[in-house]
């Protein structure tokens, strides 16, 4: 009963195709976009994580998501890395500055916990991010 409906392939006999050669199968859900967008977040090196709202949703469950952000040097405001998929923690050479970006979903929001530590200056920097929320739950 479960394998019913569309099973499309490209150049492969459907009757004995492996799943990797099937384009759409009624047995396996496709990732469906609910929300997508971009934004920016400003953070300092005050030694605390900032927990910020990325996007509110009304799905009522924790959805799967994709999140990527820039990382900027808290002292120089220079771009350290371009868009990098989160969550991640990294440090500059010599471990003088740590950076952590951890996105997570709740039943109503996509949020970001972000922080930079051990910087010597008192600057704040603004990093751009991009996100994508799926309808499919984070099982």
């Amino acid at each position: 009963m479960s394998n019913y409906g569309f099973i499309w392939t490209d150049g492969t006999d459907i009757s004995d195709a492996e799943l990797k050669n099937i384009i759409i199968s009624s047995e396996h859900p496709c990732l469906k976009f609910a929300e997508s967008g971009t934004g920016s977040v400003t953070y300092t090196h005050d030694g605390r994580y900032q927990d910020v709202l990325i996007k509110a949703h009304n799905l009522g469950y924790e959805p799967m998501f994709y999140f990527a952000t820039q990382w900027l040097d808290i002292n120089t405001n220079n771009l350290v890395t371009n868009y990098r998929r989160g969550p991640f923690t990294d440090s500059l050479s010599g471990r003088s500055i740590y950076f952590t970006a951890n996105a997570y979903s709740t039943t109503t929001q996509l949020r970001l916990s972000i922080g930079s530590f051990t910087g010597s200056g008192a600057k704040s920097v603004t990093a751009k991010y991009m996100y994508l929320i799926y309808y499919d739950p984070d099982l």
Partner: protein
Amino acid sequence: MKPILLTKELSGIWDNMPKGLNIIERAKLTRRLQVNQRRLNKLDELFAGQPVGTAKFLDLSITLAKIAGVSADKITTGTLSVGEQIIINDGTTDRVLISRDDIRISKPGVDVKKNITETNKKDFILLSLTELHKMRFAGFVTGGSYTHNLGKVPVYFAWKVDSVVTPTKFSLLATDSIPKATSTKIIDLPNPAYLIIFNEGFNP
């Protein structure tokens, strides 16, 4: 006396009629045969694909038909009009719906005809009302970068692999080279790497 308007198909009938029939009976029988012959001729025309009245086998229209079995590969063309739907049932539940402006496949046990809400879209395998990822590239990459030229920062996933021919391990540790994306390239890939890039992305 022999009728003079016998068709080709009926020629000879008159002479072969039972001897006991009188002329009037033979004339009536001949007219009946002529009527039936005309009907047979129309059926022959119909089978040959010629129009008979408004009916034509090559462009047959049936208002309502119940077909016990049909081979799907004989269905080659057709357009669904407003309000028309094709529903496929898996034996228990209606799971596939095709209409003029919608294609849906529901998960097992979910009625594909249910009203769509924000919170039940997760119950569908496929919804043409929502956007899906389209794969742009999936494969092994050596050299630490891949040029995609999408003009936007794409959604991507990458792993370090131990071989591009017979890989046994896909991984990405904090100590590995961590990939980053620009609007034209994926850079700082582990070498070698397995990379998936979708067409969807952002212009942040």
